[in-house]
């Protein structure tokens, strides 16, 4: 390898980011990262100034989820680095490839409790896929190369690179190796065993009541098309995890929608009746399974998963297929038979029972604004084509239930960690990744207030988002649990927010309000037509709950259902 001339370590950071194809980074300057920021001015990579480093990590995350590429966040040492932590943990739990570059105090001060010194590699050790402390300028280029490789390969995840100030300031010969990354202990690839594929195909062919689970892995491996082919051939219905929504078209006749804690009751019942589960790129999270002892007892289980450590972690499986889910589907597709499973699909339809009359969509107008109506209307108005970024809580579940996603990478949400405050910054990142998309932020009044400062970032960067604040004056999901499980004692859940219209206006953005369903269409049209980011304050029903619901740790089929004015609640089963 031939050197390309002398550079400072700080310059090497930007050279490296350019070489791996980074076009935008999200960050916040500070003392220990100042050499890197000074060098930035010589390079053409766009820098987005955030208002809090948590926002930088979420933006990198949103960028990665929307694009499939690695997102980048930059922060200084100490508080800058620790502010990234929530965003890193969010990316870790959802297997999102991001690289965080942090400044560190000069190497001679490490361990001395110097000003703004934090052992950030120690702090982030359990919430990164891997991390590095770099103390020499010549190590920066190879470390950055490794960091991006580790972040995106295998089961993706966050990687943190902590670079001391003296390493940024020192001069070194810049050497960039274009060859394959050599890491003797890192084996991201796994190949499915052909015999296991045969066993799986045999189980699939002989199953009478099979269900496919579409997980996040389908989207991460860009395998939606293959899944569609597989479903058309086998006639097997598809239930989805929260993060798998959009991996299979929601309007497809064999799509069952979301399963688990807030999945449709009949979908969960179908899972309990199934004789085969084909799980694709998912990990049997407790929100999906409910009580493990009674979960899908009649079903054989085939688990297609890239990470061998997930096999038999929560649910015992009969055939594990460890490998890229796309390659697994490619291997399975010719091995399975063409089948019609009309009877099973009819049985599932039967399980729907009175679901339709309990659905809030079909309830007679009560002159009130329900969040579910807002979701349904947004889906209708945007023709199901918007890229929606949701926060965490009731609105997140309503969105998952009522905004039908037909395309992958069109729903971005914090699933595993459940991070409130995620939506607005993640949407900013997503918009940078896909500027041509109409991006909607769906966020509760609680979560919005956690990171609303990033409205300034929208204004400064001149980007166009549409923000739907589902404002019920409560920390709604916790309030719902208090109502169901804590005797209706609303401890610390009533929430007074600011005037969100004025808040938007204070940022030079468009602020709008909806208080009745009939206003939705017109107000949404005004928001979409505006050039700047628009915030709509939806004043929704205050004490509505997300139905149906499997209480935490309960049997999957044991659901709390929406009380219906037509159906007796007592007939719940």
């Amino acid at each position, binding site marked *: 390898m031939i050197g390309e001339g002398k550079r400072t370590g700080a310059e090497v950071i930007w050279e490296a980011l350019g070489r791996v194809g980074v076009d935008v980074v999200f960050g916040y300057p500070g003392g220990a990262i100042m050499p890197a920021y000074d060098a930035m001015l010589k390079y053409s990579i766009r820098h987005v100034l955030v208002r809090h480093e948590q926002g930088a990590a979420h933006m990198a995350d949103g960028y990665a989820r929307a694009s499939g590429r690695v997102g980048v966040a930059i922060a200084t040492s100490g508080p800058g680095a620790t502010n990234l932590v929530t965003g890193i943990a969010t990316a870790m739990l959802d297997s999102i490839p991001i690289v965080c570059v942090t400044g560190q105090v000069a190497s001679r001060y490490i361990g001395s409790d110097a000003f703004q010194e934090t052992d950030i590699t120690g702090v982030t050790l359990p919430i990164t896929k891997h991390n590095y402390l770099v103390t020499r300028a010549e190590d920066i280029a190879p470390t950055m190369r490794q960091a991006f490789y580790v972040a995106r390969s295998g089961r993706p995840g966050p990687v943190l690179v902590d670079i001391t100030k003296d390493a940024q300031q020192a001069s070194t010969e810049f050497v960039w190796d274009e060859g394959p990354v050599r*890491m003797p202990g*890192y084996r991201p690839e796994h190949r499915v065993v052909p015999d296991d594929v045969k066993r799986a195909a045999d189980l699939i062919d002989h199953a009478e009541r099979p269900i496919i689970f579409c997980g996040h892995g389908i989207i991460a491996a860009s395998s939606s098309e293959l899944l569609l082919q597989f479903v058309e051939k086998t006639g097997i219905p598809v239930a989805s995890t929260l993060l798998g929504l959009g991996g299979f078209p929601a309007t497809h006749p064999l799509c069952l929608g979301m399963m688990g804690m807030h999945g449709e009751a009949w979908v969960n019942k179908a899972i309990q009746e199934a004789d085969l589960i084909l799980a694709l790129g998912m990990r049997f999270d407790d929100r999906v399974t409910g009580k493990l002892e009674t979960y899908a007892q009649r079903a054989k289980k085939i688990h297609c998963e890239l990470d061998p450590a997930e096999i038999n972690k929560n649910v015992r499986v009969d055939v594990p297929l460890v490998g890229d889910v796309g390659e697994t589907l490619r291997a399975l597709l010719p091995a399975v038979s063409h089948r019609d499973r009309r009877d099973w699909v009819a049985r599932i339809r039967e399980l729907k029972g009175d679901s339709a009359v309990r659905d809030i969509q079909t309830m007679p107008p009560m002159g009130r604004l329900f969040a579910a109506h807002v979701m349904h209307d947004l889906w209708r108005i945007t023709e199901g084509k918007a890229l929606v970024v949701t926060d965490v809580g009731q609105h997140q579940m309503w969105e998952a239930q009522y905004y039908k996603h037909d395309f992958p990478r069109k729903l971005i949400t914090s699933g595993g960690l459940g991070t409130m405050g995620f939506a607005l910054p993640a949407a900013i990142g997503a918009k940078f990744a896909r500027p041509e998309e109409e991006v909607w932020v769906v966020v509760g009044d609680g979560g919005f207030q956690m990171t609303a400062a990033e409205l300034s970032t929208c204004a400064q960067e001149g980007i166009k988002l549409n923000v739907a604040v589902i404002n019920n004056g409560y920390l709604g999901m916790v309030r719902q649990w208090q109502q169901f499980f804590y005797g209706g004692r609303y401890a610390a859940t009533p929430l007074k927010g600011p005037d969100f219209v004025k808040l938007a206006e204070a940022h030079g953005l468009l602020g709008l309000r909806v208080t009745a369903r009939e206003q939705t269409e017109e107000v949404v049209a005004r928001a979409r037509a505006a050039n700047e980011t628009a915030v709509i304050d939806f004043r929704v029903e205050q004490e509505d709950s997300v139905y149906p619901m499997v209480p935490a740790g309960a049997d999957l089929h044991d659901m709390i259902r929406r009380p219906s004015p037509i159906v007796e609640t007592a007939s719940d089963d």
Partner: protein
Amino acid sequence: MSNATLRTFIAYVEDLPGVLNRVTSLFRRRNYNIVSLTVGRTERPGVSRMTVVIEADDDAARRIEANLYKLVNVLFVEDTSHAATMLRELALVKVKADSAARGEVMRLCDVFRARVVDIGPEALVAEITGTEDKIDGLVDVLRPFGIVELVRTGVLAMVRSAEADDADRIPLNSSPPPPPSPSSPPPSPRDVKAA
């Protein structure tokens, strides 16, 4: 946890700062309790070897192995439950032994093939190498005399009768070994501990 037993893992890791921390952090995070852990250099420069004893059932053992492989600095993992393995521990025992008791203490040490490495007027120090059970045995018989101080290294493990090509199984720059296959047949009952 069904059929949970003590299992001994050997892990070859890159000899870099913080790697021990990554391994122990993994066990802590996944809620596996380390019974014993030893670390030392190997015949290869830049490669350290860890012997970790953990209580785990078959499923947990497989996941421990898979999780260890997820650590970027871990080169090779061996769950010795599948192989005939020599397990050794070293202990130093300082035991009260005045002139009246000394003869009896030394005779007991002799039975356990422990070496007396230091003698003072009131106490002596015995050094013993062997399996955990053997060391426990010596400690038990010496306890009535009064144990002043005890230090144990934790278990070291080595699989018996190394094949000639075993030396190549640790990937350094060559192609990595096949990853642990979760569909591999269930492990045979643990081989006897070496005497």
